[in-house]
């Protein structure tokens, strides 16, 4: 064996006890979906893992009704401390079954086991543990004394961090006193259904969390359902726009966590080797399937050649292959569809004149794979500098002055994340002030923590997940007592139903808020 050659060290699948078919989790039980079931595959082998049910409109109705019933009958009447106890139980159960969840996630998603084992699943447990403690402290959430929950939350999550996104959504919603209908992404439903088994073990009251599976149309039916009071979506900006349109004129509270084109800025005084590690972590973590990925590298011109040389050398050590292997750095691309998009945009990058370089790793025969790739000589107008690729593809641009770095970093409709690499604290603080992005990492990248708010500026969406702000996204102020004098309580929006229904019957029928929305 040569240097950096390792014997295979695959994680065992023996601790998995998967079923061949998974139904919908509605009102505390698994039920068959009424839509056409679909198969979920391992993207590293293209082998089927299980069949997953599709929720049709009637199933969505049933799930929302179950959530409403649980909200009215149980969850909204439970004390905060009891809600918290259920969340603590869930956190502990996730920890107990962490290895099983990590293996299942890697199998279904294609991401390396070292990431699911060391990042995804520990954060899932941490998220529930963090928000568990909030459940009986809502007065301090920042929306005034005695805040109220919203009701039924419709949550639609992406495939890049399946169980982690589930935790980001469900934990604050339940802590705040809402009930949930969650739809995982079509290609990564498996761990959400294992999570449903955990909810059964935790003895969570039936209907408090419902998990329905299916494709985008199931998600669309869910967010448009008149019985939901809150919509939380993580995914593409184009779908986010469509959701923002469809909830317009309703009382549904909306959180959107959408796309990004994060700038990772490396100044000439940065510790280069650390910066190279950060660049790799920024774009090759999770095969670049990260909305906050550092997909645009902005390097100060004077150190460009040095950084690129060291980056290429580092990239050659990245091991691509079996996601279940503990030594794997780069796993499989999640789907054939996503692989096609990465290829298309990368080819465009070449056509537009950027210089393409990929590591010379061996690509496995089956499954979906894309070698870590960087483009140099990229200019700000190139598609690969503007569009979210959502894959292991880095676009490298240069700058001379801090002002130019800031201008280029902000030159995007997105505003989710950015990185700054410099040894000079005062420069980091000044640049961080000027970047229009919701999360900024200074001399690090892609760090997440349940206590730390995460979310975008501009077209990367609105609302925050994590921290006190993430809790407030699932609360509303106590009903005010109507004083206009200073200092006053919160403002109360006019009833949109009456305003929109009279004027705009066509859209009102589609968009009118639920009849149930006033039941709280």
């Amino acid at each position, binding site marked *: 064996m040569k240097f950096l050659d390792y014997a295979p060290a695959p994680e065992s699948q023996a601790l998995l006890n998967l079923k061949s078919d998974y139904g919908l989790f509605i009102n505390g039980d698994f039920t068959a979906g009424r839509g056409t079931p679909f198969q979920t595959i391992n993207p590293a082998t293209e082998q089927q893992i299980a069949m997953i049910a599709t929720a049709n409109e009637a199933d969505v109705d049933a799930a929302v009704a179950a959530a409403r019933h649980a909200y009215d009958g149980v969850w909204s009447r439970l004390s905060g401390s009891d809600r918290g106890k259920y969340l603590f139980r869930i956190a502990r159960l996730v920890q107990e079954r962490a290895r099983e969840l990590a293996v299942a996630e890697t199998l279904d998603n294609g991401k390396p086991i070292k990431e699911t084992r060391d990042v995804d699943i520990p954060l899932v447990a941490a998220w529930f543990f963090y928000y568990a403690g909030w459940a009986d402290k809502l007065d301090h959430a920042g929306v005034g004394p005695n805040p109220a929950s919203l009701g039924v939350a419709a949550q639609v999550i992406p495939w890049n961090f399946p169980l982690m996104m589930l935790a980001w959504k469900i934990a604050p919603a339940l802590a705040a006193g809402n009930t949930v209908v969650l739809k995982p992404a079509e290609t990564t439903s498996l761990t959400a259904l294992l999570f449903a088994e955990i909810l059964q073990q935790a003895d969570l009251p039936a209907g408090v969390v419902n998990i329905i599976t299916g494709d985008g149309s199931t998600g669309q039916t869910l967010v448009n359902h008149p019985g939901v009071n809150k919509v939380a979506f993580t995914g593409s900006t184009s779908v986010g726009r469509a959701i*923002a349109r469809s909830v317009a004129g309703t009382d549904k509270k909306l959180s959107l966590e959408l796309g990004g084109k994060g700038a990772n800025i490396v100044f000439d005084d940065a510790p280069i080797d650390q910066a190279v590690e950060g660049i790799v972590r920024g774009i090759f973590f999770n095969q670049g399937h990260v909305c906050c990925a550092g997909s645009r590298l902005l390097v100060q011109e004077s150190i460009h050649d040095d950084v690129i040389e060291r980056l290429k050398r580092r990239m050659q050590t990245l091991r691509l292959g079996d996601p279940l292997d503990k030594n794997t750095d780069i796993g499989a691309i999640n789907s054939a569809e996503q692989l096609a998009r990465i290829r298309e945009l990368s080819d465009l990058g070449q056509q537009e004149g950027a210089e393409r370089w990929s590591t010379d790793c061996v690509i496995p025969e089956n499954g979906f794979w894309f070698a870590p790739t960087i483009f140099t000589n990229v200019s700000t107008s190139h598609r690969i500098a503007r569009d979210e690729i959502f894959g292991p593809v880095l676009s490298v641009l240069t700058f001379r002055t801090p002002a130019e770095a800031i201008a280029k970093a902000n030159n995007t409709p997105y505003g989710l994340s950015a990185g700054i690499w410099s040894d000079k604290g005062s420069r980091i603080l000044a640049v961080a002030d000027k970047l229009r*992005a919701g999360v900024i990492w200074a001399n690090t990248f892609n760090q997440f923590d349940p206590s*730390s708010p995460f979310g975008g500026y*501009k077209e990367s969406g609105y609302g925050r997940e994590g921290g006190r702000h993430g809790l407030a996204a699932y609360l509303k102020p106590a009903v005010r007592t109507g004083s*206009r004098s200073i200092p006053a309580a919160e403002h109360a929006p*006019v009833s949109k139903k009456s*305003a929109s229904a009279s004027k705009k019957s066509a*859209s009102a029928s589609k968009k009118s808020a639920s009849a149930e929305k006033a039941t709280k």
Partner: protein
Amino acid sequence: MNRLAIPKTYKLYIGGKFPRSESGRVYEVLSHKGDFLANAAKGSRKDARDAVVAARSALGGWAGATAYNRGQVLYRIAELLEGRRAQFIDEIESCEGVNAAAASAQIDEAIDRWVWYAGWADKYVQVAGNANPVSGPFFNLSVPEPTGVVAIIAPQGGESLLGLVSAIAPALVAGNTVVVVANELAPLSGISLGEVLATSDVPGGVVNIVTGSPAEIAPWLASHADVNALDLVGAGDLDWVELQISAADTLKRVLPPESGADAAAPALSRILAFTEVKTVWHTKAIL
């Protein structure tokens, strides 16, 4: 013999200047009795777009000013409004048909709101920000920042000056810049507020006031890609659902219409509605 009075020409307030509408259009402002009061500029799409350009240009300076400075500038508006109270009483009495006492009470309330919001400028970050105890060697801080350019449809009924002030003041606190469509039927106090702003250290372009038809102007602001947020507080009589749908194209932050005497009542949440929370992770050395 009575001295012949000199009536004022009421114009738009854009970029710190008082232009007429580029369209050349005016509309008659009538008293509550139906008497002619003035010709107000009937703002056009171009005027609205000019106002957005002015607001965008002013954003860096206003958002970049120190919180203490912004607080003082907002407080100074209250000072100057106090000094011009007679003029506002006149305009409110004639436009709204209320007596001098009611007009005076409205001005009191408007002044007090400027003072209340001025005081928030250097405090809202402390109340809405957080130091986050993350599990790792990081100094992790979340702070609210201004969203950017905020387009506002001012309350259309009721108290014209108070409605306008209640809508624009909270957006200004954090450092946003504003394009506001004034009360269509009672625009005079709004235009005069522009004169107060122009003389009270508010940099040109920070507040831009367009008079005219909200129904005509609002769609251009709702769809404008350089507007970051839309406050529909006074849009209850417009097709505001359509405005909100249009705002979704660039994922603008949107506040819904409000009605009644306490529309846009003073609240911290109105300040925070036009802020973005930024979280910064600073690496700590491991000693």
